[in-house]
């Protein structure tokens, strides 16, 4: 009996110290108090990752301000998805750390949400239950919140359908609702529009932009489409030879369109830069096609 209580106390103490240690653990950036639902500040310090012999990222440093929309572009296989997966915590970096509001990333796993290239809906759950996945009942009426998120992506009337009967664009919108329902402070987008047709893609870009403007989360978008990056992002990063080779700010008013002065210039310059030092001549094809 005694020892049991003692153990409990020790456990509680351990819990306390770890909680207290989190914000104290060397915080090089200023930690601003965040209201819930607003964006998080993200820092990557010295990230390196190799697969076997092949180095993918080497000593990558990155600062993302709260609420910023950052796009990562690069040739296929350049490591842009790997960078996103490291920040998401889906993979472990060989070296370096990722900080979330100056603290360790792991403590904020619940505030980071991901959208994948394929929607990854559970086919055996109806749309509404897919959106409600991972919500705990203590957070209020789960179904009501899921319904609300579905309404935000314009699919309230499909709540009772199976994912199998939805189109590709609709599935991605459900996936977006599933991410939003958690009110993430960091939304990671891993080429979520890559498999969609051109019209649906533009529609989705507008939807993502409007939801981002409304909720002010920090957004990190990986894409192979330079045009998409210029249309959505405050900053575009180019990953090349395992490094951030270019960090360009896009100061165009929103909503953006091709008619805007500067839009085409940004897009052209980024594209030229992506294509210029071709490491292997045969890999140019995919990027030219996309452009």
């Amino acid at each position, binding site marked *: 009996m005694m020892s049991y209580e003692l153990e409990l106390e020790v456990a509680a103490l351990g819990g306390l110290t770890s909680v207290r240690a989190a914000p104290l653990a060397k915080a090089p950036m200023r930690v601003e108090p965040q209201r819930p639902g607003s964006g998080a500040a993200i820092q990557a310090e010295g990230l390196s990752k190799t697969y076997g012999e092949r180095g993918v990222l080497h000593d990558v440093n990155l600062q993302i301000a709260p609420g910023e929309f950052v796009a990562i572009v690069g040739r296929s296989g350049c490591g842009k998805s790997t960078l996103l997966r490291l920040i*998401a915590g889906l993979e472990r970096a060989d070296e370096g750390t990722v900080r979330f509001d100056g603290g360790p990333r792991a403590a904020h796993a619940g505030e980071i949400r991901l959208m*994948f290239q394929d929607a*990854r809906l559970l086919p055996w759950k109806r749309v509404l239950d897919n959106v409600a996945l991972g919500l705990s009942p203590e957070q209020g009426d789960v179904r009501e919140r899921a319904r609300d998120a579905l309404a935000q992506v314009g699919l309230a009337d499909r709540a009772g359908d199976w994912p199998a009967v939805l189109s590709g664009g609709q599935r991605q919108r459900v996936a977006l609702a599933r991410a939003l329902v*958690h009110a993430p402070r960091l939304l990671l987008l891993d080429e979520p529009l890559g498999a969609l047709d051109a019209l649906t893609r533009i529609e989705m870009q507008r939807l993502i932009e409007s939801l981002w403007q409304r909720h002010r989360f920090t957004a990190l978008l990986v894409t192979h489409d330079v045009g998409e990056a210029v249309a959505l992002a405050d900053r575009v990063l180019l990953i090349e030879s395992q490094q951030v080779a270019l960090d360009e700010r896009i100061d165009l008013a929103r909503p953006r369109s091709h008619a805007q002065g500067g839009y085409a210039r940004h897009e052209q310059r980024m594209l030229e830069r992506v294509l210029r030092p071709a490491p292997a001549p045969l890999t140019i094809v995919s990027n030219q096609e996309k452009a």
Partner: protein
Amino acid sequence: MSATSASRSERRARWRDRIVPTLLPVLILVLWELASRFGWLSNRVLPEPWAVVKAFWTLALSGEMWQHVATSTWRALSGFALGGSLALGLGLLTGSLRSAETLLDSTLQMLRNIPPLALIPLVILWFGIDESAKLFLVSLGVFFPIYINTFHGIRSVDKGLIEMARSYGLTGWPLYRHVILPGALPAILVGVRFSLGFMWVILIVAETISAQAGIGYMTMNAREFLQTDVVLVGILLYALLGKLADLLSKGLERWWLRWHPGYQSAANAA
């Protein structure tokens, strides 16, 4: 005008599709009946169909048949429940944990290649000829189809879905319940259908060896007295029960896999 005639010919075609498959069985029954009536077919080889119907009727009325059916069904289901749940548990274990797979799987794969019926002499030595022997044989027979399919079902769950669910905070039991189990379910149900068929095969053999009740006992008893009509009733009963088990598992698939595109059109049409 042309529309109505089209629909009429369509209806006629549908009727034809329904009737044509039954022609051959009916013809065989008629020939069989005639052959028995005219004495071309000895009653000791095959009784006339009408005699089988009569035997079915009298056995059903006396209540004797139902007693045997109940005994056999109980044996089949309890064996299925025991072997099936063990198989499911072990399949989930080896499918989910690498260490359990390394420990158990090669042994189980070795045992799988032994036909359960080859164990009959041993089983009689171990359990004698009472209920536990039949329970053991049926459990063993249904074990492997369910085990193997559960194992492969768990292994073939989409890794992307598991990754997604983990990143959404699902771990442990919730991850299992919402992602892994439903993902493995189609394969598990295939195993269940296989083993339901196997269940009756094993039971028939087990019951004809030694039993004091059950359909197998009824037919073996009838053989002693040359009651070929009762033997045929027993065979018919096995066929009916097998069909029933198959219908049941199909129903389960329809309900549990109603999300699956492969079952959706069927469910909508029904």
